[in-house]
């Protein structure tokens, strides 16, 4: 195991954590104010910032800095969702298929024809319908599992190779 890169990973993860807090607070304030969130614009900005920071680590880590990208992307996504759900007082596995294509992806393994349209799903979820709540939380757990698996694999690849 090559532990020389471990401090770089720690610094990078610390940065991602702080950035997640700032961005989650930003989105939370917007949601509270009833303002529209431009998901594509935020995605581009966040991806750009994380990529630039990861690029700094190319000097000490060489190729391994490339593996910081999946760590940053999927780690950010999982932590951001968890933070925002906490701030909004929602269930930790809450995920919305109507918010972005990325989130909708995790509904793909379930048959969601019955849940259409999304406005109806949203209404039934907030009403507390067991089937609809379970449907959304299952997709949320799937998203966390996918993201955490990718982060762990990428960290293992850096440390073990």
């Amino acid at each position: 195991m090559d532990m020389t890169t471990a401090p770089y990973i720690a610094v990078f993860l610390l940065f991602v954590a702080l950035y997640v807090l700032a961005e989650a607070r930003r989105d939370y304030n917007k949601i509270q104010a009833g303002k529209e969130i431009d998901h594509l614009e935020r995605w581009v900005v966040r991806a750009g910032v994380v990529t630039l920071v990861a690029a700094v680590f190319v000097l000490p880590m060489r190729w391994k800095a490339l593996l910081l990208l999946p760590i940053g992307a999927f780690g950010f996504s999982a932590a951001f969702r968890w933070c925002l759900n906490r701030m909004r007082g929602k269930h930790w596995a809450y995920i919305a298929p109507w918010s972005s294509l990325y989130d909708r992806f995790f509904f793909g393994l379930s048959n969601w024809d019955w849940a259409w349209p999304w406005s109806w799903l949203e209404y039934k979820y907030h009403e507390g319908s067991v089937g609809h709540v379970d449907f959304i939380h299952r997709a949320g757990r799937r998203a966390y599992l996918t993201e955490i698996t990718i982060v762990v694999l990428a960290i293992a690849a850096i440390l073990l190779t």
Partner: protein
Amino acid sequence: MKISGMDTKRILIGAGLVLASVSSLMLSAFTDIYVAWKVLIALGVIIVSTAYLVKWTGSPYGFANIHPGDGIIDLRTDARRRGIVVGRNFTDPPGNAQGELVSVTARFWSDQMPEVINVGEFRRETFIEYMTRPTGFGKTHWALFFLIQLVLGIGMAYGIQTWNEGGWIGVTAWPIVNGVILLGTYMNYTRRWI
């Protein structure tokens, strides 16, 4: 206006492009990095030239990314090769509203462009046709697509050169990133995530 079958010319060009890419990259593995850069520049020229070939070797018929249940009566094409829905009987979801612009692959020379493609004269485009639209790789503009491929190709070639110093990461990234691009394109084609 009849509906075309498989476009063999386009398939051959695609296969040639893949072969040229793979062989160039394999060649670069056995030469020094400066030769590899030259190979990649040549590869870029090949790709851009092929883009122009693909653009003008498509079948001279109109294709529309129409799905069952869209309820489209017919499409009116504009100068930018977009289709404008005309007609009624629109179902939901997804359904196209009257007057809405939809993506159309209309492979015509501009002076032969018909004003209206009537019902029965267009069909849903195949996935291959969707990926070889004159406008881009699916919804991705050709210029952006080739830029992405050039960056990935350079990364892969440099990865081969430095395999033992972690270059395997760059080589592994190539199929993974392209796989994700292809998956996303397919999901856009089917309009279903997933």
